């Protein structure tokens, strides 16, 4: 499990490398897990610090995807137990959905690394 997670994170880091070339990578924040279960993202809304890697795991018997509504990121179809990871480097509100079952939606809120006073 741990090994699989790390390799997907590495893959995702490569995938987002183009997004962060302009600046240095932010300090590593605690990683966050979102599970896909019963055709829903749980938790549906997550607030993280910039630099956090969010890893989704599909626990359904049906494939799902994670697709940014603003087309900033998109996973392949995840079969049962497949994972997808994305590192959020820029503060903002990221809405996403499953492109196969678009009634499934979720939100990742990314706060600035120093933004803890806002909470």
């Amino acid at each position, binding site marked *: 499990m741990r090994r699989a997670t790390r390799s997907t994170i590495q893959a995702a880091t490569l995938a987002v490398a183009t997004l962060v070339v302009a600046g240095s990578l932010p300090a590593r924040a605690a990683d966050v897990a979102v599970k896909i279960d*019963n*055709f*829903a993202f749980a938790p549906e809304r997550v607030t993280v610090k910039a630099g956090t890697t969010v890893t989704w795991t599909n626990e*359904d*018997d*049906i*494939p799902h995807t994670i*697709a940014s*509504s603003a087309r900033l990121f998109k996973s*392949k*179809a995840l*079969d*049962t137990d497949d994972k997808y990871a994305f590192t959020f480097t820029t503060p903002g509100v990221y*809405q*996403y*959905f499953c*492109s*196969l*079952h*678009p*009634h*499934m*939606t979720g939100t990742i809120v990314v706060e600035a690394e120093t933004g803890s006073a806002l909470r």
Partner: protein
Amino acid sequence: MSEFDSEQDRTGVNRRKVLECMTWAGTGVLWTIAGGVPRAAGIMGEAMAAEPAGLSFLQISDSHMGFDKPANPNVIGTLEEAIGKIKTLPIKPSFMIHTGDITHLSKPSEFDDAERIISQARLDVHYVPGEHDILDEEVKLYRERYGRGTKGSGWYSFDANGVHFIGLVNVANLKAGGQGSLGEEQLAWLADDLNGRTDSTPIVVFAHIPLWVVYPAWGWGTEDSGRALDTLKRFGSVTVLNGHIHQVMQKVEGNVTFHTASSTAFPQPAPGTAPSPGPMKVADDKLRSLLGIAEVTFKPGQQRLAIVDQPLKA
């Protein structure tokens, strides 16, 4: 004519193109289809005078080749049983339509299994894709196999025995928070495709996700299907055949009959009766009563097509 029929251009004119060109040219030959081979029934005057023949065709859906979870670890076996049933039907159907989710994960081996088994029915098969058939990154596997001669993401129409068949795609480019979607380009094509056809032409529309609102909380509907149905309003007989929800459901609204077919792979729960629409595990001896095929018969002069659902095992 479209971007996917270059192969036919090399080998000759395909059947759909013949039909489309005939329609466009408005020439006086009536075509009928038997076993997938177009035949001229004579010049229009003669053909119109003759009583048009009835038509029987089959619908299969949601084969999900590659699915191996507890709800049915043997989807190859149940598809083979469905095709076996088709081969023993007393009246040989003219052709088959497959309303999508041929595969579970759009893998080449899954498409191969489907082709190997379904071709044993020795029937012409008209496909539309389900969301499970367009998962490969380049979205080319379905197109290469079934999308030739089609428009956009795979829509098309054809005629058989005086019935106009329209295959629509409502699983591509879906939007967050929405349901199935046809999109502007396809809706415009549909209006154009129907333009000039007489109101008395029986219409059969088939697509993967239901073109009526079955259960929005599970995404079981098509957000712009109302616009497609508006375009079809003037026709006296419209039959809408869908899959996706892995259970038989029927609704009649004015001149329109909506019907969803069983899957050959696994059942799904009735709307709202489970936490999610995921595959439903039932007792082994009950599974085959929830899987099956649909036989559709058109008789000239009758407004409604007869649809008989046939479970793999009663």
